[in-house]
């Protein structure tokens, strides 16, 4: 049962990651694949503050989220002032550079990872409580992204994505909007990272490398970019499928690459055969019945 809880919690956390990544690349139109590093920053920051500095866990998790937010602004602001392409390169460099730091610094546990992270809930609290909390957080994250995308901010993001020149000509600050979108998505990822650290109680640098980037990317692309429930479907499917493969009892040397091929192969197939993903993005601002009745009268 512990295994099932772990899978459900992982699915919940990946829903948060996929939904927040969809906000960045889908709705924001920003080119970045370094989402896992903000997940890592939230995890490591919360873990270090709670274990080594005695922060209460909720405060440590909030601090981890804020540190991820600040880090994302540090990455996005200088690169987006130049052009969107530079955000991609800066984010890859930031991700790989920070992983090198995590691998070599003693205060992060080094390549062996950071252990003995305090648990979010005491041992007497049933695991089902943590599962319920993560499921609620995942649902709220998906709904938050939906609310943003369907509201005034989302309309502005769509305008910026479709024609940045016209957007700027109307007096709107495209760079500020891009940085804001990137920061919000990264903060959500940091929040998920903090949850991960305090449930699994162990974080290691290789958990947040380029492979993780392709996992989250797959969930968004296969699930359906720029749709609310696409990343949710993608996260559920692409967390459940590898678990199914583990029951084949293949040796680890074959299992890892096979899982990787499954993820990447799915992305390639969907990109060319069904680019809109499993859940295609519908019309975001379809006229409401009231609105259309008013128009007809």
């Amino acid at each position, binding site marked *: 049962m512990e295994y099932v809880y772990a899978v459900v919690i992982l699915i919940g956390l990946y829903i948060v990651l996929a939904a927040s990544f969809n906000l960045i690349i889908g709705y924001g*139109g920003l080119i970045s694949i370094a989402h896992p590093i903000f997940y890592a920053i939230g995890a490591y920051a919360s873990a270090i503050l709670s274990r080594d500095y005695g922060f209460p866990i909720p405060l440590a998790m909030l601090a981890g989220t804020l540190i991820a937010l600040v880090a994302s602004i540090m990455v996005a602001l200088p690169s987006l002032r130049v052009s969107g392409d530079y955000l991609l390169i800066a984010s890859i*460099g930031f991700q790989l550079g920070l992983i090198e730091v995590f*691998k070599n610094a003693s205060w992060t546990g080094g390549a062996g990872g950071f252990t003995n992270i305090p648990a979010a809930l005491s041992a007497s609290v049933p695991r089902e409580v943590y599962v319920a909390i993560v499921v609620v957080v995942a649902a709220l994250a998906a709904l938050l992204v939906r609310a943003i995308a369907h509201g005034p901010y989302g309309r502005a993001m769509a305008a910026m994505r479709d024609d940045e020149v016209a957007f700027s000509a109307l007096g709107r600050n495209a760079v500020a909007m891009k940085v804001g979108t990137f920061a919000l998505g990264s903060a959500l990822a940091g929040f998920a990272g903090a949850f991960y650290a305090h449930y699994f109680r162990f974080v290691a640098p290789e958990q947040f490398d*380029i*492979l993780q980037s392709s996992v989250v*990317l797959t969930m968004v692309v296969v699930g359906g970019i720029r749709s609310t429930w696409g990343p949710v479907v993608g996260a559920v499917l692409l967390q459940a499928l590898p678990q199914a493969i583990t029951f084949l009892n293949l040796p680890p040397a074959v299992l890892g690459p*096979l899982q990787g091929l499954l993820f990447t192969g799915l992305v390639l197939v969907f990109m060319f055969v069904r*680019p809109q993903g499993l859940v295609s993005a519908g019309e975001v601002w379809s006229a409401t019945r009231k609105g259309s009745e008013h128009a007809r009268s």
Partner: protein
Amino acid sequence: MLSFDIVAQILWTSFATSSYFVLFALAFALVLKVNRAFNFAQAAMMTVAFYAAYTCVALWGLPGWVGFAAALAASIILAIVIEVFGFRTLRRRRADQIFVFIFTLIVSEVVAFLAMLVFGTWPSTIFPSLFWPVTLVGNVAVSQWDIPAVGVAVSSVVVLFGFLRFTRTGQFMVAVADNPDLAELYGIAKQRIYLATMLTAAVLVALGMFLYGTRAQVQPTTAIDLMLFAIAATIIGGIGNLWGAALTAVVLGVVQNSSVLFIPSEWQGFLLYLFLFVAIVFLPNGVKLPARRRLTRKTVAPDLVGAGSQES
């Protein structure tokens, strides 16, 4: 204690080993300049080139030149597949740049995972030994690998320059890089030029990866790490500036290898990412060199306005 000999040795070895970085940077910069694509799939081309050579030489015992031919063929075939079935399709669909990048990243990862399945994750080399006979020049050890490697890199740069400057295809590449639509109006087949660019990059990649595989160990994910070097060199050298990218690759290679004199070796990898980040923040347009003075005859433009008024 740092002596002149130690510094000279490190500088020479760094310079020699930057030869393959020059080739990787040139390949990436060329595709970015002409095809306007961040070709992360170059990592896939690098991986197949290495493992083709490794299979022929290390596994089947064939001579080194056969291994190189196999590396070249594998790299070219994959370049054709990527261009014809990938980039061309995405161009036809007017895909967003994010999709083009995702495609190139995923291709490099697919090839890496395939290589892991087939060859495992153990570090491999093309030849059984990484050690080459050494000759002392002064007090600097020059291995039998160094001179040919530097020669290959320099020759490649010269040949590429000549190709772009003096051949029809090369001139078309420059035209397409400047303005693809205008080049098409002049009758240049854009798609063929994009393919030719990818093939040129494939040749550079095969050369570079054969050199790398005879000097260092390679795992399936090594090429993805090496790509960051090519990207950093391209940005710092100035996007669109092939020779800037090549020169920057040499400088970065020397600086990164020489850094072992000043920082612990485990932090050498981190330096590259630091350079990349600094380049994005402070040098987004690359290092600007002073404009070259062109030696042209000065001519005086005729005073057309004055002549017209006199006639009237």
